[in-house]
């Protein structure tokens, strides 16, 4: 599971960096307590990241009716790690 969660995190980071590059956004250092809205990406960018991660990881942790929304980068990764378990 440890190996898997490392992979999930690195995939999330890779997709965020890819989208930031495509959208010409300057990305803040991705620390766990970074607020997503301070990351340099807007909600359209995160929407694209979620679509790409659904393709690469096969999960969308925000799609259920009782889903909550992540506030920090750490929350965001955590949603994927939990869903991948």
């Amino acid at each position, binding site marked *: 599971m440890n190996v898997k969660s490392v992979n999930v995190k690195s995939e999330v980071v890779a997709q965020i960096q890819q989208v930031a590059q495509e959208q010409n956004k300057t990305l803040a250092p991705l620390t766990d307590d970074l607020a997503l*809205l301070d990351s340099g990406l807007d*909600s*359209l960018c*995160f929407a*694209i990241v979620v*679509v790409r991660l659904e393709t690469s990881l096969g999960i969308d942790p925000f799609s259920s009716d009782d*889903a909550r*929304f992540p506030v920090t980068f750490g929350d965001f990764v955590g949603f994927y790690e939990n869903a991948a378990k």
Partner: protein
Amino acid sequence: MIAAGGSSSRLNVGAEGDASWGQLAAGSVINEGHVDLRGRSVLLAVVSQFTAAAALMQLDGLARRIVLFPPDMSRDHLAYAAATAEADLILTDDPTVEAVDANIRCVRCTWQPAGRVLDRQTQIETEWILLTSGTTGVPKLVVHTLATLSGAIQPGASSAVWATFYDIRRYGGMQIFLRAALGGTTLVLKNAKEPVTDFLARAGSLGVTHILGTPSHWRGALMSNATGRIAPQYVRLSGEISDQAILNQMHATYPEAKVVHAFASTEAGVVFEVKDGLTGFPQDVVGSNPQVEIDIEGGTLKVRSARTAFRYLGANAPVLKSADGFVDTGDAVDLRGGRYSFVGRQDGTINVGGMKVHPEEVEAVINRHPEVSVSLVRMKKNSIIGGLVVADVVLKKSPQPADSNVSSLQREILQFCRGELAQHKVPAAINFVPNLAVAESGKLIRPHA
């Protein structure tokens, strides 16, 4: 004319400005020489919402026509909008806006608390022209008046403080602007560059009681840690489909507030509000309001009321109302268990965070790429922003290019789209497919959801 409200109620747009409604109406928006606005068609292309609000207060009843050019619309359409609306003048606060035609004067516009007072003795019924995006990328000009725009506005408590994420140059924001200006209540508007955290903090410090936005605005707010900065009594979502997840989230975030979602469009006006906290709308909404007739025969929602727009402007403009006065919203609905749900647009229009995307416009760009044979652009549901644009693309050569080339060609097509299209219209993903389904009519078969 828009009557000025009570003396203590005001418009606050943060750094852009703050003034009471009375001050706004009494100030001046024209800062150069003699400009006669009476009976003119005036295109308003200002960046500042504060200035736009002041100009609207002053122009209604005086100008023949006010054209509201949204700040996020490409300036490439300015000349088309001005010509179609037979504009005599362009009012702008943007030095980069120049006269688009030798016959159309460009006048600088900023609000000043005192200045030349316009002669408002004779009042005429001004046409208010709102712009929406059209199939080919060229905007449609939708004709309203103050009466149609304010048709859904009921008198409310003057102690209310309204706030919205919407821009007042679009229908949703216009509703809130008129509600506050006509009702004499304070209104807090977000300026385009302002972070959501700052906006919510400002709205909270001004005591906001009623706040409105699209589900995507609210998802963005939930992703900030600033939702606790406001304690509203009333929260409304509209402009996109409100799914159960976002409604549940809003209830959980503001347990004391009335959380409602509403259905409205620039053409059809305000149609209904849903108060039971569930997605879609109950069957008995149809026929419940004698002022708004709803017809769902044929699968799309059609509306007849005094709130609908009159027509589109322009020589080859499409028909806005049927002969019996109904406006077809184009929103397909499906009845199940006594409740209607929205299942997409009949014409395939995609709603990305409250902004319309016409698949044909995106397909036309993709199809210009030399390696593309044909493409189909469709909506992909998204939990963050409601819906996103994705494209299925058939290539001219080898139906499935070798794996190593796939991602570079996908990137190349996306790059091409970014150069030609607004950010929300660029596909989030490109899928290469061997072929696309074609109907007997010879047209691509479009999914309706």
